[in-house]
């Protein structure tokens, strides 16, 4: 049963604390999840932003190259109009500040190239494949005015050998080169090239535009991702081609030429971490869109990897930012909120406890009083402390109940203590004596104080059944338990007691005990034992008498086979002496001797079975063997009276009984039958012994063909007999023996004569 104080405290303080905790934790986890989703969205947005920006940044170069192509295809640009071509190219270059140079090369090796050459200055390079002065360099200002002209006799530039030219000519469409570092400006850039195809479908030349992509890096450095997030761009080989810090973008290759650093080499470990291990084994980038978290320098980051999704530009953008950029503030907020919640919970919890205490106080005072009343330190009608009305009503009822119960208890105690029979309370689980009365102590000749708390088992003789086990076996099955047992008085004298106990349960099974009445039955027991002993002695004497009567006949029985043996031995000796060659005959005779010897042995065995001492202990034995032996014992007498004993046994089962006693009963019945038939001079003298199985026992019937028994005679009683020389003890003893073996014996007249039947248990009897 729970205390009201605990229930109140739990209800008022505990539940409220529990609710606050649930709310705080659920908001804790949901807000974090939302924020992380938000961070990812932001990263994707930044990446898209970069992609869009790059598209719009690169678009003019393609347009410019395609425009140049259109001009060339329309034959606006001719060999002799090279100055005009230079001017057209110049216009395009000047219009787009990201262009580094615009140029056109043809199949003959001619080449016109216009490029920026420092602020407000432009440089043109004209290559004429068949001219004397092959290469001419022209310096111009923003107005296309010629500032200087000089030949370059060392130049051997041939556009047809350049990769951009060959690539565009090979694919017959516009191409983008991989990014590379422009030789002249040492800036990163890429080239857009478009082939010029004549009406005959033959490539006439290729127009190209160089575009610097340093601007992409500048754009990345301006881009704001979270607070400290960044983005960078890779080409398909894993080289970093745009990075917020452009200084990192150029590195000297093995041959001294400038090139882009690989993502694995770049001097930005954070970028390396953000990219993770997404390089394939052949060095190319796994360009599938992906997102993942990583930890760098003890801080958690989120990272987003996105392909550009532009066919000719196989670039990948990597965007990353520390997680705290997005949820740092929220985390701080959350920490604060949790502290506030704990504070509130503590304050309201304390208030709740206080309240619970106030509610509980009158109840507690009442409980203390009740306990004092029950201990008798306060009278039940003493004034009450201030408390609830309901409790006051309950108290009045209880006070009445208590005084009533005390009276009953006093009466019961007097009854218990003054009872003329021994009475005890036992703990059902331990078998210890909880309470006892004076008579019980008297039975055991002990001081009551010495017996209290003792195990009841210790009062019993050793070898008696364990009472605790007995209780356990019967509790719940029976309402009580009773047994007879041998016990020891405190002075060591053996006594016999009758134990009659009932199980008492109060409430739950923990409080269960046995209330028992104990009677001293030593006197009765002694008489019983005496009678048993007398009966046993009587049976023994009767058996000895039967043996005496049977002895002569048995000696005769035994002499028969012995005589046959001597005769057969004599025959054998004769053959050995006179016809020593006839060993087969001797062997046959020896076989007969063996058989006759066993016949003699059977008789001795039957005899021994009848006189064997078994301490009256039940054993399991074959009934058919016993029938045969009993028949043998009576056989000689039956023969003298010209009677026949026939055995018609049923299945050979084992019965459980004292064998010698059953033998005695059988011999007694057989002899009675033989004698009755002889005395009546019956013409037919047959005794039939049969057995029959039924349930738990075996029935044995001895039926004779004599005159039957007069109904006036009280059979099985002592001194009732039909025999001239009998004492009338045989059947009385038989009944005692059969009943002590757990069977029954009875008599009825059959159509042939008298029939005696008795049963024997098949299974051992419980002691």
């Amino acid at each position, binding site marked *: 049963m729970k205390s009201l104080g605990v229930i109140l405290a739990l209800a008022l303080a505990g539940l409220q604390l529990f609710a606050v905790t649930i709310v705080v934790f659920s908001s804790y986890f949901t807000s974090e999840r939302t924020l992380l989703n938000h961070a990812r969205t932001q990263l994707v947005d930044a990446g898209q932003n970069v992609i869009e920006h790059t598209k719009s940044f690169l678009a003019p170069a393609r347009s410019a190259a395609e425009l140049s192509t259109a001009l060339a295809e329309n034959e606006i640009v001719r060999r002799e109009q090279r100055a005009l071509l230079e001017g057209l190219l110049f216009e395009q270059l000047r219009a787009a500040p990201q262009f580094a140079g615009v140029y056109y090369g043809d199949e003959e090796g001619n080449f016109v190239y216009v490029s920026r050459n420092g602020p407000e200055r432009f440089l043109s390079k004209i290559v004429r494949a068949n001219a004397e002065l092959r290469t001419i360099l022209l310096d111009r200002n923003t107005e296309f005015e010629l500032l200087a002209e000089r030949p370059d006799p060392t130049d051997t530039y041939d556009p047809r050998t350049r990769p951009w030219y060959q690539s565009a000519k090979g694919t017959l469409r516009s191409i983008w080169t991989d990014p590379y570092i422009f030789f002249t400006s040492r800036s990163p850039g890429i080239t857009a090239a478009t082939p010029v195809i004549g009406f005959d479908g033959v490539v006439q030349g290729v127009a190209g535009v160089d575009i610097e992509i340093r601007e992409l890096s500048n754009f990345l450095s301006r881009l704001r991702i979270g607070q400290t997030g960044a983005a960078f761009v890779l080409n398909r080989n894993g080289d970093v081609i745009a990075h917020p810090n452009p200084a990192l973008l150029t590195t000297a290759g093995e041959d001294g030429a400038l090139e882009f650093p690989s993502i694995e080499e770049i001097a930005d470990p954070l970028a390396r971490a953000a990219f993770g291990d997404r390089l394939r084994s052949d060095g190319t980038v796994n360009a599938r869109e992906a997102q993942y978290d990583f930890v760098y320098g003890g801080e958690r980051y989120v990272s987003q990897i996105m392909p550009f999704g532009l066919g000719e530009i196989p670039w990948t953008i990597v965007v990353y930012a520390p997680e705290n950029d997005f949820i740092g503030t929220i985390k701080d907020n959350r920490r604060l909120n949790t502290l506030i919640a704990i504070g509130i919970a503590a304050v309201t919890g304390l208030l709740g406890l206080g309240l619970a205490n106030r509610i509980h106080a009158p109840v507690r005072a009442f409980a203390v009083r009740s306990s004092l009343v029950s201990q008798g330190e306060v009278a039940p009608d003493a004034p009450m402390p201030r408390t609830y009305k309901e409790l006051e009503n309950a108290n009045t009822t209880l006070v009445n109940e208590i005084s009533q119960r005390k009276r009953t208890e006093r009466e019961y105690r007097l009854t218990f203590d003054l009872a003329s029979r021994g009475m005890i309370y036992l703990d059902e689980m331990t078998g210890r004596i909880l309470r006892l009365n004076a008579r019980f102590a008297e039975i055991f000749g002990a001081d009551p104080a010495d017996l209290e708390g003792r195990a009841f088992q210790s009062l019993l003789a050793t070898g008696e059944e364990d009472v605790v086990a007995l209780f356990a076996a019967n509790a719940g099955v029976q309402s009580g338990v009773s047994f007879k047992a041998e016990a020891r008085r405190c002075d060591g004298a053996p006594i016999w007691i009758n134990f009659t106990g009932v199980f008492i349960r109060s409430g739950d099974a923990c409080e269960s005990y046995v209330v028992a009445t104990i009677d001293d039955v030593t006197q009765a027991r002694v008489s019983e034992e005496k009678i048993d002993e007398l009966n046993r002695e009587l049976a023994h004497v009767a058996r000895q008498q039967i043996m005496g009567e049977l002895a*002569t006949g048995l*000696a*005769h*029985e*035994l*002499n*028969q*086979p*012995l*005589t*046959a*043996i*001597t*005769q*057969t031995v*004599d*025959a054998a000796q*004769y*053959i050995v002496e*006179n016809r020593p060659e006839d060993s087969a005959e001797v062997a046959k005779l020896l076989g*007969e001797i063996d058989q*006759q010897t066993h*016949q003699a042995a059977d008789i001795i065995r039957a005899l021994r079975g009848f006189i064997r001492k078994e301490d009256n202990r039940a054993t399991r034995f074959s009934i058919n063997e016993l029938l045969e032996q009993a028949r043998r014992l009576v056989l000689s007498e039956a*023969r*003298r*009276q*010209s009677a026949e004993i026939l055995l018609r046994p049923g299945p050979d089962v084992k019965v459980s009984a004292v064998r010698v006693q059953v033998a005695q009963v059988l011999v007694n019945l057989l002899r009675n039958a033989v004698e009755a038939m002889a005395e009546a001079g019956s013409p037919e003298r047959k005794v039939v012994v049969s057995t029959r199985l039924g349930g738990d026992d075996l029935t044995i019937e001895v039926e004779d063909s004599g005159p039957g028994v007069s109904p006036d005679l009280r059979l099985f009683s002592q001194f009732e007999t039909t025999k001239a020389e009998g004492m009338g003890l045989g059947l009385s003893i038989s009944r005692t023996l059969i009943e002590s073996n757990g069977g029954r014996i009875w008599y009825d007249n059959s159509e042939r004569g008298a029939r005696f039947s008795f049963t024997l248990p098949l299974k051992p009897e419980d002691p």
Partner: protein
Amino acid sequence: MTEPATATPVVFLVDDDETIRVSLARALGLRGYRVRAFASAQAFLDAYDGKAPGCLILDYGMPQMDGLALQRRLIETDIRIPIIFITGHGGIPESVQAIKHGALDFLEKPFKQSVLIERIEAAIELDRVQRVEHAESSAARARFDALTDREREIARFMVANPGANSSKDVARHLDISPRTVDHHRARILEKIGVNTVAELVGLAMEVDFGKDA
């Protein structure tokens, strides 16, 4: 010696126990005896008319008719075959009873074979002697039977009064002349085949002559 003494003596055996019958008959058979065994007294009585010479080995305790009863029946029918009783009980009263009725011996089972053989031999010899004696007395009786009435009267008187059998005494008693008595006496002695009156008296007692008057 009218009975032929050449017939082989038979050892009759009556015992209700088959093992005894079989083993005993076999052992005796091996030793050259003609043995006839019976399972009960009645069977023996039905089969035996007293003519065959030999002896009877008889079990004392048997159902229906026991050995003693059979002995009585044989005496009643004047069959005088020598009896050797065998018994598993060996009670003294029974053996006394049996011997009183003329049993040759009373052997307790189990018995020594040599003792049994000796008894059988004695019994067969006894039987032979008895049969011879029986045959002799029968002849003597026939001779007495051949006497005339007067001669028988005179012979009986002489046998009955051995102290007063002179011719004068006989003549006075029968109221005839002493000469006639002398004549008759000579005829009697001749017919019976004896020389003196004393011999006549001895023979007459042997065949119980004189009692059946």
